[in-house]
């Protein structure tokens, strides 16, 4: 560690640590000695594993973010939420009634939303979470799917909700129903499925299966990459 790096003090799970300025919360935790085996994943802001809540000194607000994305600041109070306790309602996509709104039957607590917008404020993806819960309430499944599309399932919305809604499960259900029954079907997908069923790829698969590991690696390196 070079001497010219400015150090800041952060409080992780209630204990003070000196860490270099400019690190993400995740790296600051690791610098402080935490070995992360839960609450860590892709480190790129996509997997949603590293939900974190924090406060800044002199500020009453409770902030929520992904530890791999937010930068640690001097005086920050940080807590990791490696897992969000939540019940995912059991459902089978093909058995859902495609004409009615299954959300209210599976997640009736959606009706408890008071439109306080706390979920939206907590979302590190900056989604309009409350708006999609409201859309779920009024049965607009496609709107839920669209508004929740970039959800990484970190669960921070569900941690903060005073109505105890599990928003990300609601969004996922809506996206599945939308994708299966409401969104326009992709013509090329049906074409490809027909090709698979017609056995157009049998020979190629057969060739691959007979290759040794080295041959496979070589073929992989030489493959056509769409640019």
């Amino acid at each position: 560690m070079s001497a010219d790096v400015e150090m800041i003090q952060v409080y992780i799970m209630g204990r003070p640590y000196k860490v270099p300025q400019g690190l993400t919360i995740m790296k600051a935790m690791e610098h402080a000695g935490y070995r992360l085996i839960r609450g860590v994943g892709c480190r790129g802001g996509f997997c949603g594993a590293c939900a974190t809540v924090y406060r800044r000194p002199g500020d009453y607000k409770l902030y929520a973010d992904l530890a791999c994305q937010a930068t640690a600041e001097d005086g920050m109070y940080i807590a990791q939420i490696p897992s969000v306790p939540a019940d995912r309602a059991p459902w089978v996509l093909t058995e859902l009634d495609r004409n009615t709104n299954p959300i209210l039957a599976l997640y009736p607590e959606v009706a408890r939303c008071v439109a306080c917008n706390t979920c939206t404020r907590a979302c590190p993806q900056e989604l309009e979470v409350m708006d999609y819960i409201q859309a779920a309430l009024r049965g607009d499944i496609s709107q839920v799917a669209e508004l929740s599309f970039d959800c990484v399932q970190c669960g921070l919305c569900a941690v903060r909700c005073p109505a105890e809604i599990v928003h990300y499960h609601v969004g996922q259900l809506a996206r599945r129903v939308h994708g299966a029954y409401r969104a326009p079907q992709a013509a090329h997908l049906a074409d490809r499925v027909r090709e698979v069923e017609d056995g157009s790829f049998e020979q190629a698969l057969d060739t691959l299966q007979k290759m040794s590991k080295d041959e496979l690696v070589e073929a992989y390196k030489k493959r056509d990459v769409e640019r």
Partner: protein
Amino acid sequence: MNSIAYYPGCGVADQARSMEHTARAVLQALDWEMQELPRWNCCGTVYSLASDDLMRHIGPVRVLTHVQELKLDRLLTLCSMCYSTLRRSERFLNEDRERLERVNAFLDDEPDYRGGVRAVHLLELLRDDIGYSALETRVTRPLEGLKVAPYYGCTLTRPRSVALDDPEHPSVLEDILEVLGAEPVPTAQRVECCGSYMTASDPSVVRRRVTAISEAAAAGGADLMITSCPLCQYNLDARLAEAARTGAPRLPSVYFTQLMALALGLDPALDEQVIDPRPVLAARGLAVEVEA
């Protein structure tokens, strides 16, 4: 063309689309345009009666703030429950600025609600802005011979502070029926609760209530009933159909907007009801084409 900001509410946006469809068409014919709010949320449906429960006013405030941000001060509702909740929350906060300030403090970086946006029910718009005579000139298919029992339910006329008509002796639905050429059949049950949201917890109570309401209407010789609320409509249609299996009069109910559409020669969108109103209408010479 006149225009007014419009709040559908969850019920109207989902299973009561026929109400919106017919209200929009009727207003269009009367030179009024409903402009749906670009963003809206549930009003909360049941007004909170507790003095310490500011959280439940956030939903209504958010809706009213959307109207304020459009620099407008009136908001049209079709649903009686939305009308009541929006108006009562507005009054509750406007009469005590401290409450309003606390709600605004909670809303934090979102725009403050300053107060003064009034929810207007479609019945008020028809009576007070458009006027019955304007409505009358648009009637092309008078509902002659049709006997209709109005059902007001609770929230249009109670509490007194936001009542759009006399709580015990309302007349706005009867007046509109007369303009449409129908014969109103007022009953004592028209202002008695249908059981409301207890349809989700205690359907038997609701079945008993809608039996009493439909019996009173049938005793007056009504062909059908009219409602102004998706919840009353559900209870007087789906729950009454259940009650009819054990003897309740199987009287159809439609939204008052659907009867207006019929009388104005517009599509009455009568295909959502459990108890089909088309046979009784046809019997009175008001056949409605059924789309295949």
